[in-house]
């Protein structure tokens, strides 16, 4: 289990549990995200609060999840990224395709 999941009113908070978001758990993350998205939710907020580093494999899984979500009208927001992780996403321009917030509360604020 890579994600700790809580759902309220079709909004899912999915917290990545490992400190390393990498090749070793990228496939499991992708499968769990696809399962969540397939349940008919409207928004998945992915928290990186535990993640100290991330690699290209995990970033690839994140993009696969977004590609699966978009035609199903499901949004994916990213929250609580540590500076190293956020800088890497920015380096390869992933900040242009994901909405990024400081924390869950800020992300949920967009729903009102």
């Amino acid at each position, binding site marked *: 289990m890579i994600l700790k999941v809580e759902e309220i009113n079709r909004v899912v908070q999915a917290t990545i549990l490992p400190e390393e978001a990498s*090749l070793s758990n990228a496939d499991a993350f992708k499968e769990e995200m696809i399962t969540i998205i397939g349940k008919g939710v409207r928004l998945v907020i992915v928290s990186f609060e535990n993640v100290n580093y991330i*690699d290209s*494999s995990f*970033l690839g899984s994140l*993009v696969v999840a977004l590609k699966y979500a978009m035609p199903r009208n499901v949004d994916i927001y990213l929250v609580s990224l540590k500076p190293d992780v956020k800088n890497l996403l920015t380096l390869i*321009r992933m900040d242009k395709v994901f909405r990024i917030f400081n924390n869950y509360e800020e992300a949920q604020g967009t729903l009102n």
Partner: protein
Amino acid sequence: MREDSDQITIVFNSNREGIPGTLNLCLDHIRQKAGTSPLDEDLLAKIKWVIMELLTNAVKHSGERETVLKIGLTVDAVILEKEDYGKPLVLVGQDRKKIMWPLEEMVRPLDFPIYHNGMDSLCVRTDESGRAIFFIEELAELEMPALLSDTSEHFGLLIMTKASDEFAYEHEPESGLNRFISTFYFTQPIP
């Protein structure tokens, strides 16, 4: 592990479980060699990303073979080298064309676009010796980032190219050796 004055050689068994430990070993060496002139945190973060990607690349593409990582610190640069005897590099470009090493004489020198995400175009340029130098061409931003059209083996190459000051690949046909080289130049030399 062999250690001399400015370079260590680390043998990595190309298994994913070994990545965190090997990464920490590399970073510890760099911090230790930097000594009383600690490296800028932003630079260390970039070095960490590249080591991660080199090790991940080894797990994905070297099979069960050993990979050798060499880390050198000079007065003006950190140089990371990854060597193995696995399959030579094959790059598939945006138009699905392939280039593979060893390169045929007729295709040298060559500029080859590999991937673009709507803002950056990752390209490779080969020189007379067949050495491949990766570089980025910035594009005018597209309305819909092309990032989503290619999920890709290319993220790793993109990270290593953008994080490094120089990123290159060499292949020695006689021995079968593959070598990726990532160089980070200090803005101010280490005293």
